[in-house]
């Protein structure tokens, strides 16, 4: 009986005191709404890691892993705009500023403020965004949505397609991170 109790307590301790939360199957979607066309790309192999002890948040996004419905969009996205052979990854390295306000061992919804360095297309910018962390059954669900100006990251839109691609794209993040045991 003591052994069973000890095993149960150990499992609970692992779940409630996990220091790091990880996913490699997070989702990032971008939406470009232009007068003539709406373009969407989805990447469901986003890696994200939270270290709850020091409050760090990291994302690694392989650009070529974005999926499109049409072949031509896929090719233009990688070859003409993101130049993904030259700049294969987008990376965010930052912090959850109010990490102490998030109770990772208690189910609930918490507002989170993140800040850090976002690198896209070889350009690194400081960003600060609000998001949401939902703790449910030991998992941490990150959700955030923000806009990115393509010009900020030196992504040029050729004049011929300026009515088909928005100068500002919406980025939607949804990642379910699990504790590393």
């Amino acid at each position, binding site marked *: 009986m003591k052994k069973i109790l000890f095993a149960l307590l150990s499992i609970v301790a692992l779940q409630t005191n996990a220091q790091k939360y990880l996913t*490699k*199957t997070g989702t990032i979607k971008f939406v470009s709404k232009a007068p003539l066309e709406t373009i969407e790309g989805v990447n*469901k192999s986003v890696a994200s890691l939270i270290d709850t002890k020091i409050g760090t948040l*990291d994302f690694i996004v*392989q650009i*070529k892993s974005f999926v499109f419905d*049409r*072949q031509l969009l896929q090719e233009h996205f990688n070859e003409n705009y993101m130049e993904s052979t030259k700049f294969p990854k987008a990376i965010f390295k930052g912090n959850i500023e109010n990490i102490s306000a998030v109770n990772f061992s208690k189910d609930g919804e918490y507002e989170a403020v993140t800040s850090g360095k976002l690198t896209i297309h070889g350009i690194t910018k400081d960003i600060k965004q609000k998001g949401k962390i939902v703790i449910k059954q030991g998992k941490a669900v990150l959700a955030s949505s923000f806009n990115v100006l393509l010009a900020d990251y030196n992504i040029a839109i050729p004049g011929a397609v300026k009515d088909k691609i928005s100068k500002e794209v919406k980025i939607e993040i949804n990642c379910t991170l699990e504790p*590393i045991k």
Partner: protein
Amino acid sequence: MKKSIKLILAATVLAIIVAFIGFKFVNKPVNDYAEKEVNANFHFAQIMDKVSNDTASLSELKDKLVGIDGNIKSIKNEADAITIELGDSNTMSSVICQIDKRYTKDFNQLKTGEYIALKGIITGYTIDTDLGFGNTVEMNYCTKNSK
């Protein structure tokens, strides 16, 4: 029929054909690799060994159709998409496969721990030495690989 009318008719037909081809080209769905031959096949351990020790040959596999077999570490099954992680509990390193949404029905019954052979386009890899992600290989438009 007058020559000028014939010319106008021919030009109209030609314009319709060009517009049709252009429309088909612009709206062509992403490539379907289900029936295509793979460039190479690897077991999970072999591809992970390449990430650790031979990135030169791994880089040559980028954008190529490659078969990888191994055990399912996790499955993320959403409304319109399935993502499978190949690996095991002994390592953080894994292969992430986004299943081609035209073939998700082939993967609905799979369970964690099962062995599977997949093929897909290698989109890249990540070598992680400090963050704790482990090494990762990513593949897109994955389908079952019958070899």
